[in-house]
């Protein structure tokens, strides 16, 4: 699965988690906070991602990693990269 495929799956799952979102909103530079996914919705997205990508993707680890980045964290692109790394 390449980067574009991962982004597509994230778009699909984020839209299921937050029904007002469209694929056009979910670009790599966007943060989940600006997309309207608060910590509760991130839990749901994390569960959906883990169900989709399997146990190698531990979304809590990505959340830990992003927490250290402060305001610049939690972008869609960093999640794509994280999943890409986890899958290889």
């Amino acid at each position, binding site marked *: 699965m390449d980067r574009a495929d991962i982004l597509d799956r994230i778009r699909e799952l984020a839209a299921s*988690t937050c*029904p007002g979102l469209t694929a056009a909103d979910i670009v790599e530079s966007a943060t989940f906070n600006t997309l309207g996914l608060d910590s509760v*919705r991130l839990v749901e997205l994390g*569960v959906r991602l883990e169900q989709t990508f399997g146990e190698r993707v531990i979304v*809590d680890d990505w959340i830990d990693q992003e*927490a250290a980045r402060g305001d610049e964290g939690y972008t869609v692109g960093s999640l794509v990269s994280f999943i890409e790394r986890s899958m290889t």
Partner: protein
Amino acid sequence: MVRPYRVRVLSSYIYSHDEHIPHRDMARDNRWFHGFTKSVLRRGSGLADFDIQFLRLPPPPSSFPDVVDRVLQDNAHLVICAGVDAVTRWAPVSDDIPTVYFGGHPENHGLDVLARPNVTGVRLNLPVIWSFENFSIIRDLLPGVREIFVPVSPLLSFAPSRANYRAFRRQRRDPWISGPSSFIGFRSLYFLADRLGCRYHEGPFADLDELASSLRVITPGTTTALVVFNDTVLLAGAVNVLLEIVRERGLALFWVNNWPIARAGGVADFSSDFEKAGGLLGEMAMKILRDSAPIDTIPFCEDPGERFGLNLRRCAELGITVRDEVRARFHAVQAIDGSRPPAVSLR
């Protein structure tokens, strides 16, 4: 019931990310909310169907009129209480709002909430004291253990034990109540320690200074074990004081239902499987909210499982050798270098 389902979660154990305390991650690592979410998704719903808000309670035994007003004004469809201290304080407030909870009932304290017509939930077992087999893991890790110490917070929510401790304090100056005194609150823990061949000491501390001074009389090393429950978490600053003294004195700390604290400086944690408990709560919530099932038709559930955590780095610091068969009792292991391998069942 009309969506979104208005759910209010009440708990004393809700922390913000700027609070520098090891148990800040309790919710994450306890994972009950992950289990709840999975359960809801499995039933064809999602959190978009919910208006869910988390409301932090003040430490017990305080009342919380602001929180109560908010829950009532919001016309909540369901209240979830995380912890027995939350449900025992919330239950008298309303006989109408369906309430589900999870929590441990040491010595059956607080179990009378089940008589409430609007309450059901999941009982957690406090695994280390639920069976001698589990309690014996302390000896498996510390073969030379001779004494077990259990500090008890002044914010313990069980009034009979608090009264008993006050009576002890009026008569004695010792920081620890030693078994088999009738002032001991956790009788089953005393019996377990006795069967293990250890002297049992229970220490009801009044404040952080008393906690510190009582810990400092414990003999350091692996002939003593300090076993702590989450009532200590309720007193602001207590966990940090405790961890500081545990590190300074070289004490072997065991926690019950709080892996983040054990990971920060304890030898081991003995938790219930919070993810499974959350899954049961999700199932109950969907029955109540989507299927309009009356709460009195939803049976109370027993503890769905255990998850134990072992901190090998702390074991190494204390010179504790962990045999393979003992390590295999643990589901999560923090390695000597502090890393956390994926939490997988080793059983």
